[in-house]
């Protein structure tokens, strides 16, 4: 199963801009590579990444085969309240992984 790593500061001041870093293990097979017998390796791509903060979507990305294997995405969000950031990756072959991180806002 895919391993996901999420980095979110454990504590933040209210209104502070925090950086979220997300890394997930995935081949991101482009569908452009060929095997030695000439057959095409079928694509296997994470297509979408969504981050919700206490249920509200704060960031969304569409990924294409040009994203390197083991996709890394870093973005920021405003620490509004204590709660949970949920990161959700979906892709080909029913790929779906959710990872969450708790944050305390004071």
């Amino acid at each position, binding site marked *: 199963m895919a391993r996901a790593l999420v980095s979110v500061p454990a504590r933040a001041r209210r209104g502070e801009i925090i950086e979220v870093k997300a890394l997930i293990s995935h081949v991101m097979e482009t569908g452009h590579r060929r095997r030695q017998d000439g057959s095409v390796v079928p694509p296997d791509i994470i297509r979408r990444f969504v981050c919700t903060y206490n249920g509200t979507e704060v960031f*969304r*990305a569409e990924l*294409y085969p040009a*994203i*390197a294997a083991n996709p890394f*995405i870093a*973005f*920021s969000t405003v620490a509004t309240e204590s709660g949970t950031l949920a990161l959700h990756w979906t892709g080909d072959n029913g790929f779906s992984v959710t990872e969450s991180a708790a944050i305390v806002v004071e």
Partner: protein
Amino acid sequence: MSRHLSRRELLLAAGAGLASLVVVRPARATPEAMREAIRKVVGAARVTPGRVKLELPPLVENGNVVPLAVSVESPMTEVDHVRGLHVFTERNPRPEVLSVRLGPRAGRARVATRVRLANTQSVVAIAELSDGSWWSDSADVVVTLAACLEEA
């Protein structure tokens, strides 16, 4: 064979062969394909160079893992923020790289990731602002080891 091919027939055949060669070549985005892909996202709006910052190393040893960041100086308030960031390449098999949706909750308009580059080429970043304007930046990258080509 009963008759020899005339020079004209030979040239025609060669021409046809060449044409089919061009058609059969593996899919590869071209500057035109990139423009088309940008058109699809932007629509009829005008894209002005500026305001966006695309960070990419100018020289890349390994095209399989290239750090890339796109940012826009923006207050990211309800009335004035960045709605979307998009990245395109000129000579990858497909022009699209990444499309990001964000809003005031982002606080800062910046995204960083790692991309594949199949060739020495130009990379273009485009930003959509809340006032409906579009801005762009581009970077030229020299790639010594190309991505996407190795056999599985």
